[in-house]
């Protein structure tokens, strides 16, 4: 029988709970790694993607010979890394004569490869090559706007798949509330042809307009590149159905002790619980002090109280 290890400390228990599957998911971590050979541009691309996703990404810098995402046996290392780092999207860069500046974007389901898209990077412009007013630079971790332009994303299978994967990669944390003052970046992906996408990262400038809605202005700041779709692998139907399952929408929870009246509006009831005499804090309890001092303090307090009583009675 295999020995089952259970966490002995609260810290380990909490770390395991963070990695446990949740009903509603809040954004995937990205794993960025490279293969046997990389080129200069590819190194820049990978490091800039890492900068864009600073809070939720892990970057491996060593070369990995045995990872070949599109081959059946070449995924075991990827799945192992995904399990250890708890990352569900990966960006794998490699360079060869046949496929120069190659990026494989992939997603995982339950730490097994779910789907893959292979793109080539062309016309890459790094962050340093853009000149702009530094005050407008987007802050790390802000939620971006994502814009997809082009009928290719609707009609062409590969671009449709790429759109899904790019959305997952670029969108950051999934949140319920958002602070409107913190919107400062946007990604624009345009389908230039049936297999080419122009991806760029822009800072947002909100300008005053007549109404509540400000006028948006996009200024290119970050990396921009052309992605040429090479190969892709869709998930098989059964796996896809399972991965797209959502928890049934919970029925609206009734707030307890709140009722509404036609005349008075919303009424709330406050119940004061019974006073638990056993749980009441003991007076004159100098807990931070060592025992002898504590007892001495208690004694003093008692003497003072009895003195007061004597004075009052006199």
């Amino acid at each position, binding site marked *: 029988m295999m020995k089952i290890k259970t966490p002995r400390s609260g810290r380990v228990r909490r770390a395991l709970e963070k990695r446990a599957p949740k009903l509603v*998911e809040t954004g995937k971590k990205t794993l960025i790694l490279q293969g046997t050979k990389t080129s200069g541009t590819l190194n820049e691309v990978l490091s800039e993607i890492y900068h864009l996703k600073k809070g939720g990404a892990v970057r491996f810098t060593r070369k990995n010979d045995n990872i070949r995402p599109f081959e059946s046996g070449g995924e075991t290392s990827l799945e192992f890394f995904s399990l250890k780092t708890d990352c569900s999207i990966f960006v794998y860069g490699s360079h060869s004569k046949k496929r120069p500046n190659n990026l494989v974007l992939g997603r995982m389901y339950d730490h097994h490869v779910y789907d893959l898209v292979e793109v080539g990077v062309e016309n890459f412009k790094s962050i340093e090559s853009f000149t702009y007013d530094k005050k407008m630079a987007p802050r790390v971790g802000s939620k971006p706007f994502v814009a997809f332009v082009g009928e290719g994303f609707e009609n062409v299978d590969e671009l449709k798949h790429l759109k899904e994967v790019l959305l997952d990669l670029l969108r950051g944390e999934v949140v319920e509330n958002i602070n409107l003052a913190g919107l400062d970046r946007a990604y624009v992906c345009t389908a230039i042809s049936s297999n080419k996408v122009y991806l760029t990262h822009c800072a947002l400038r909100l300008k005053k307009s007549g109404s509540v809605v400000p006028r948006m202005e996009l200024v290119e700041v970050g990396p921009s590149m052309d992605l040429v779709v090479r190969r892709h692998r869709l998930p098989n139907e059964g796996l896809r159905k399972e991965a797209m399952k959502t928890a049934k929408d919970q029925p609206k929870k009734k707030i307890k002790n709140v009722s509404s009246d036609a005349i008075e509006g919303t009424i709330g009831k406050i119940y004061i619980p019974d006073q638990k005499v056993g749980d009441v804090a003991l007076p004159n309890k100098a807990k931070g002090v060592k025992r002898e001092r504590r007892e001495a303090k208690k004694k003093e307090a008692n003497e003072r109280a009895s003195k007061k009583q004597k004075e009052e009675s006199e």
Partner: protein
Amino acid sequence: MEMERQKPFQVDVENLLAFNPFHNFFSLPTSRDELVKECLDEGTKLVQAVADTLFNLPSTEDVDGPLVKLPPPTNKTSREKHLPKPKPPTKWEEFAKKKGIKKRKKDKVVWDEQTSTWKRRFGYDRVNDDKDVPIIEANMTDEQEWILLLKDKMIRRNESRSKRRIASRT
């Protein structure tokens, strides 16, 4: 380059996403700069469309700025892990449910009859401390040894039970 202004964009406010499925490059612009400019223009229109919906949502005032509650998303993305499986109840939980036994919270302080004060349940100067005798023997009596053996046995039994419980749950 035609641009259909009447046809609507697909806007997903939850993801701050906007998609224009009707744009078409009939002929690519000759220079790269023009292409970039065209892409940025289209992008601006889309971002403006999202912002229109976003800023018109009901907002609450927060310290840093207006806070807006986002609606549920329209674009479904695949999950990263399976849905959490409901854990089956343990043997004790089933028994307790059947018998109607409820958990009771213990007080931190207990009334001690002998000294007629409130004493702690655990720790220094606690209620019913068996080591609280005026004279302690140097060697343990048989009775004390027996109590220690029983405690040891109970600890081992509880550990094996807990392991079994965890194994049945995973």
